[in-house]
């Protein structure tokens, strides 16, 4: 039996990137098949994100050095002879939309390839003020039994930010990933992440979103082998006319896999937040355990919160559940706080911080921690 699935309509624009735009980025031959496919693919017409047009922004090689950390890394452009890199790049992955994952592969101007054995930390800090158009293509391989901490921060006021990051987490390996997007006046940010988890691999992701005028964030966890375990916690704060579409997918392909998604956030003014969670439990995934929950605090009468949690289950020996709720800062709660001497603004700040602090506290890099705090307080 099949069902009819909604297919996102697409549009083409004469103002799109072409082979010419890749010339000054180097390694055109490696990019060529992706460029061809890219040009054959239309842009998604996103209803909820209100994306119906696209204008090219000039692409230049990335200025500055965004990478640091205790592990060895290569820039994407220097990884073309690596088999693992190429295998992963050719894997099917649509991310937020195929057009944008192809854009990453065809026109990236930055990105990294990190292979971690033992224990290591890696930091990628992109500055959109210096590089208003940042297209990233990255790969992380956490080797058998290794333990990795990755922090990725996108900051500043840019024009376009598109990133695709692939993660391969081998047997028994551990990954902790902090993904921080805070570029409030950037018109479009599209972020796609794929995690492939092998036997007993363990992944913990923190997705922090503090703007971008339109943000599409996509994280897909493929729990491919026995005992793989992933958790994602997201925190978002949208204000002004910001729109964000967060999409989290748990794909349980093997027995005893565990997946958990928790999304909490605040929306204010005329902002619009879409929280999508997809749990897909395949027939082979005996004793899988999946859980999704989302909570949005809506502060303004003109803000809008959508939740689209989906459960697709093909094995009956599972535990799968999801929940979604929205709430308001009602008069009672405010009154309670204000009666204890807090102003309305302070009360709000307290609630927002209460949501974010548990995550901020565990960010392992001090200046990133400070950046997030600053951005958050400027938003309040």
């Amino acid at each position, binding site marked *: 039996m099949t069902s009819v699935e909604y297919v996102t309509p697409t549009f083409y624009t004469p103002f799109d990137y072409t082979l010419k735009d890749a010339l000054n980025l180097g390694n055109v031959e490696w990019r060529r098949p992706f460029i061809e496919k890219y040009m054959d693919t239309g842009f998604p017409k996103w209803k909820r994100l209100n994306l119906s047009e696209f204008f090219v922004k000039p692409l230049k090689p990335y200025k500055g050095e965004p990478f640091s950390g205790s592990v060895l890394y290569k820039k994407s452009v220097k990884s073309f002879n690596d088999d693992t890199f190429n295998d992963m790049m050719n894997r099917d992955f649509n991310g937020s939309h195929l057009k944008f994952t192809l854009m990453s592969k065809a026109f990236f101007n930055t990105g990294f390839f990190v292979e971690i054995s033992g224990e290591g930390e890696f930091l990628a800090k992109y500055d959109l003020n210096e590089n208003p158009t940042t297209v990233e293509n990255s790969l992380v391989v956490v080797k058998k039994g290794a333990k990795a901490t990755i922090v990725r921060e996108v900051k500043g006021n840019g024009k376009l930010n598109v990133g695709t990051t692939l993660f391969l987490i081998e047997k028994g390996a551990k990954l902790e990933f902090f993904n921080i997007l805070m570029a409030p006046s950037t018109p479009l940010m599209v972020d796609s992440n794929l995690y492939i988890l092998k036997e007993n691999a363990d992944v913990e992701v923190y997705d922090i979103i503090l703007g971008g005028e339109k943000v599409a964030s996509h994280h897909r966890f493929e729990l491919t082998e026995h005992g793989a375990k992933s958790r994602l916690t997201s925190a978002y704060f949208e204000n002004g006319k910001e729109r964000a579409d967060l999409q989290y997918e748990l794909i349980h392909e093997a027995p005893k896999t565990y997946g958990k998604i928790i999304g909490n956030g605040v929306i204010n003014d005329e902002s619009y937040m879409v929280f999508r969670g997809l749990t897909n439990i395949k027939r082979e995934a005996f004793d899988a355990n999946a859980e999704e929950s989302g909570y949005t605090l809506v502060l303004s009468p003109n803000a809008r919160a959508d939740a689209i949690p989906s459960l*697709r289950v093909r094995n009956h020996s599972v535990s799968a559940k999801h929940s979604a709720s929205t709430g308001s800062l009602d008069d009672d709660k405010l009154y309670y706080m204000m009666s204890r001497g807090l102003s309305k603004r302070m009360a709000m700040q307290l609630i927002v911080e209460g949501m974010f602090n548990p995550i901020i506290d565990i960010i392992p890099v001090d200046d990133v921690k400070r950046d997030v705090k600053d951005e958050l307080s400027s938003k309040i």
Partner: protein
Amino acid sequence: MSEKLSFDGKVNYVVKSKPGLDKKLIEEISFNKDEPVWMRELRLKSLDFFLKRSNPVFGVDISKLDVNEIIPYLKPDAEKSGSWEEVPENIKETFEKLGIPDAERKVLAGVGAQYDSEVVYQHIKDQLSRLGVIFLDMESAVKEYPELVKKYFMRAVPPNDHKFAALHGAIWSGGSFVYVPKDVEVPMPLQAYFMMASPGMGQFEHTLIIVDKGAKLHFIEGCSAPKYSVINLHSGMVEIYVDEGASMKYSTVQNWSKNTYNLNTKRALVEKDATMVWVSGSIGSAKTMLYPTSVLKGKGARAEHMNITYAGNDQHMDTGSKIIHVAPYTSSKVDARSISSDGGWAFYRGLLKVLPTAHHVKSTVECSALMVDDASASDTVPIIEVMNNEADIGHEARIGKIKESQIYYLMSRGISEGDAKALIVRGFMEPIVKQLPLEYAIEFNRLVNMKFTSDLG
């Protein structure tokens, strides 16, 4: 159960339309029914929408459904009967095979039984007339109460709402019309039975219910169809208007034969302080798409949706509910349960929309799914859209199996494994099943018992 519904009743048809949907056919249908001009125009406009619109972009696979293959209109040579005695013998036989109890046929004077596309039995109890309640077959209502019908007919669901609403608008036939006057409480549930009894036959009954201010009604719809080899399409429509302070409960059980495409539209517009309750049980059909909708238009309006869906072998049930909060202080509650077994596929699809105007809304949506075996599939996709900051919305869903420990516990008390499973499944469905009319509750329970005890000998 399906065995009981298989039969070869012979019926003589007066008019048997040629397959194919065009303007001429629609005009013919309208002419045969002696309809007013506005209705003919509505049919033609609907046909236009139907031909222009594409299939739904979600839900069940209907690529094998060729609407033109379905003979859209058939008229049994039975004249409309005022009393049971006048109902033709062969039709009575069909009722017999459907197992509708004798007593029920006679006692329930409010029953409108639909045989093919034409209502053959429609009797209004004296009591109803005295209360001023109008309970008629839809065709007669169009003629006898043209102004009233025109005001409401396909206003809640306009013909261009979706492709199958348009199809329905073009070829609708049969159905019930109910009007309950202001402050009248209808003392007994009104019932309408629908059935299909001809191979390749489409059913497009239209039910229109108007519950005036402060009135109260419980309407029960049930469908049963004999088993056929030709594709059958059911594309009915229910429109309900619940006026200020009124209260309406609509209970339905669909048990179409396993070759039926059940693409149905049901919608209620609920005014100030009014209450709408939908109780739906879906057990039959090959593929179903059904999402009863409540539009909460007036301040303080309330909706409750209770669904139970059973997807067995080769069944794809795409069911759910849709609630649109338009006015402030409105509330809604959804309790949707599904069971998938034997390779069946139960899909819950929901929409909960809270418009900017609808402040102080409260809503809870709960979905639970029970998967009986590994061959089956269970999906849940509830969409929630909240457009203001004074709404308290909660949603929960869970999918699970029957726990070994529960079966073990029951078996240790001398209950067989099959009986134990049946007991647990019945317990799971119970809160919703008990809302159904008794005969359907019995049918549901019988179905579950059969499933589990026969599986295990």
